[in-house]
């Protein structure tokens, strides 16, 4: 029962603890403003979660997850922006009824690309499919040609740079460097007041837990084991008759879709979207969240994201001029001293003690698999 396809017992406990932390502890202890900040941080946790599968298990380091975060976020933002740009709201413009930035850029009718985003159903499909298909195209082009490792990382960086330039350059269609601001309602429901923020928070936590379940499923399935095998010895897997490229493409696509869901939630929670989440710097930051959390740990990704972002906010509030140094110091410490991140600290120092405590009271139960063996630090 406890050792089913999704999780073993210690993982189940871990997920329950996280769920209680997010659903009960945080909402009870934080005011709405801070809770909304947590909601913003958690949108990055979706990306980190995808990176655990793609990078931690599959060994594919993508330095361009901001692309997918951005695509998901922009799809959502386009829908919200259209709804905020009703004729009534925009009557001071020379062309009422189109988003304000189009008006500033002398566009006089809604571009064709924007038309379908009047529909929420289309938007939700687009949030999943646009990044998914884009990842499929990049993945197919790269992995079928056996481009991997550093080269793949560099290419994802290039894609991030290209998309940023495209968004900034086509400001009549995308809002340019300002992004899409002043998003207001979702199907007439105002997303800005406090009660809406609370509803959105719980919705997002639900989505995150669902994504964690999917990640757990992938990891415990045969697929997950092949991914790990591929990371450790790609040629052997290939000679055993598996199509390595397809598995890689799958891992990359699932990471892309997770990132896109995070991006869409970001647009809803924060009320705007801008190219500053698409480029190289945010993409690398997202990898750092995963590294701090421990790239082999699904739950670690969530905690790592929360920790880094909490540190970012509180350091910058207390030391507006010096905080970046503090943050840099934190990263260096974690990477040097704890290469497996928070999850490594937990697995190496905390869990053994808890185990010892429990086992000193009662004999070790069956099915209590040793996690560190199953996950295994990669041999790099």
């Amino acid at each position, binding site marked *: 029962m406890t050792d089913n396809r999704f999780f073993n017992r210690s993982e189940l406990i871990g997920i329950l603890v996280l769920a209680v932390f997010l659903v009960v502890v945080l909402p009870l202890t934080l005011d709405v403003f801070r809770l909304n900040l947590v909601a913003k941080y958690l949108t990055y946790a979706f990306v980190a979660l995808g990176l655990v599968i793609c990078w931690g298990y599959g060994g594919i380091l993508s330095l361009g997850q901001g692309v997918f975060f951005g695509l998901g976020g922009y799809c959502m933002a386009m829908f919200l922006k259209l709804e905020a740009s009703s004729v009534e709201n925009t009557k001071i413009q020379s062309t009422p009824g189109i988003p304000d930035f189009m008006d500033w850029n002398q566009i006089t009718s809604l571009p064709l690309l924007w038309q379908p985003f009047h529909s929420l159903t289309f938007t939700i499909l687009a949030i999943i499919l646009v990044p998914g298909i884009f990842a499929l195209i990049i993945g197919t082009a790269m992995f079928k040609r056996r481009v991997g490792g550093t080269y793949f990382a560099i290419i994802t960086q290039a894609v991030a740079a290209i998309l940023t330039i495209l968004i900034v350059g086509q400001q009549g269609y995308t809002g340019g460097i*300002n992004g899409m*601001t002043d998003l207001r309602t979702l199907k007439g429901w105002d997303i800005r007041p406090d009660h809406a923020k609370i509803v959105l928070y719980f919705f997002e936590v639900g989505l995150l837990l669902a994504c964690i379940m999917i990640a757990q499923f992938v990891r415990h399935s045969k697929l997950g084991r092949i991914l790990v095998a591929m990371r450790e010895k790609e040629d052997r897997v290939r000679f055993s008759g598996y199509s390595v490229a397809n598995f890689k493409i799958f891992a990359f696509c699932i990471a892309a879709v997770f990132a896109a869901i995070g991006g869409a939630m970001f647009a809803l929670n924060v009320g705007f979207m801008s190219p500053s989440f698409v480029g190289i710097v945010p993409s690398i930051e997202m990898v750092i969240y995963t590294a701090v959390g421990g790239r082999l740990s699904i739950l670690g990704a969530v905690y790592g994201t929360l920790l880094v972002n909490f540190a970012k906010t509180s350091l910058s509030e207390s030391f507006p001029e010096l905080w970046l140094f503090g943050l840099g110091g934190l990263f260096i410490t974690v990477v040097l001293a704890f290469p497996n991140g928070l999850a490594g600290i937990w697995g190496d120092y905390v869990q053994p003690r808890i185990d010892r405590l429990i086992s000193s009271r009662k004999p070790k139960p069956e099915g209590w698999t040793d996690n560190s063996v199953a996950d295994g630090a990669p041999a790099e």
Partner: protein
Amino acid sequence: MSSNKSGVLMSDEANKGLLSPLRRKLLMGMAAVPAISMLPRASFAQTPATSAVNTTGLAVTDTEVTVGILHSATGTMAISETGSIEAEKLAIEQINAAGGVLGRKIKFIQEDGASDWPTFAEKAKKLLVNDKVAAIMGCWTSASRKAVLPVVEQYNGMLYYPTFYEGLEQSKNVIYTGQEATQQILAGLDWIAKEKGAKSFFFIGSDYIWPRTSNKIARKHVENVLKGKVVGEEYYPLGNTQFNSVINKIKLTKPDVIFTDVVGGSNVAFYKQLKAAGIDLSKQALLTISVTEDEIDGIGGENIAGAYACMKYFQSLDNPNNKAFVPAFKKMWGEKTVIGDVTQAAYLGPWLWKLTVEKAGSFDVDKIAAASPGVEFKGAPEGYVRIHENHHLWSKTRVGRAKLDGQFELIYETADLVEPDPFPKGYQ
């Protein structure tokens, strides 16, 4: 009613006694705060009661009022925004030394926007929701203002925004202390067309909303009013450092005037490459609306000497206000600091807010927004400014020529204050 009036007067006298010239320094002022609080409570009745001047729960106590400063202290914009932070702190210190606002000292909370627009929105929300600041002095780029605008409108805050910008915006919750595009551009173009007989113009800008809108307005003015011609219009991404191809085009088209709104670090590359290509700015007229004394610090005076800049303030302005302002600024922030147009506009923010609060007799945002039109600041380093009904400032347009030492020499200024017109008819 009458007792209240005399109460205000007495409080002014009390403050004067407290802040004798010897005690003017901030530290001394702070040292005096505990002494104030030891006085019997009755003495506070002389300043207007907090419940009367603050009906919306802002961070106002009997002795203090809190405002927020929200600029980028880190990231690519820090180099530009630091001047604004410094100017705002100077203004706040001077206001406190002169007795504060409605008898209350200004305390500020500084937040870092980190050159990142979402962070600006997050911090603005924090200042308004958590800290309940009475006003925010902040933002610099249009993108950061656009990110903050929905927040200050939703939580009914008051933002004093210092940068010259593209216009097309007006909000109850924002006072724009810089120039909007027509105020900055039109008079400068008129001047250069008359003075240099200029007919052909080449536009070069960074690729975002401000240069594009400014150039759109400039193009309409050149074509419709000056009956001239725009022979080229080119945009480069922010941070671009390769301008050789556009410089070649300039050499081919030989425009009478190069009109630029390239921003930030790109300026350094642009002017150096212009000089290296043999374009002599003492012969080729160049009019920029994006280079202030701050940027010349990076560009180097020898690379830009001879260029004309269209601003409302230059550090070299010769008037009594500026002669007091520049030394005070240098005393606080060091001899080497330079003061650009936006820095001066940022300095206006706290002062205009103080004057408006005193006119309204209240810290309430709604009352300040309503009382703002008509507020005039006679002590402005640029001379004299007044707030228009549309929450922008009436101010003069000035043209300066860059000198080798990095300062501007004032060449021309409009005779009257120019009316702000954020939604210019015929220029859209």
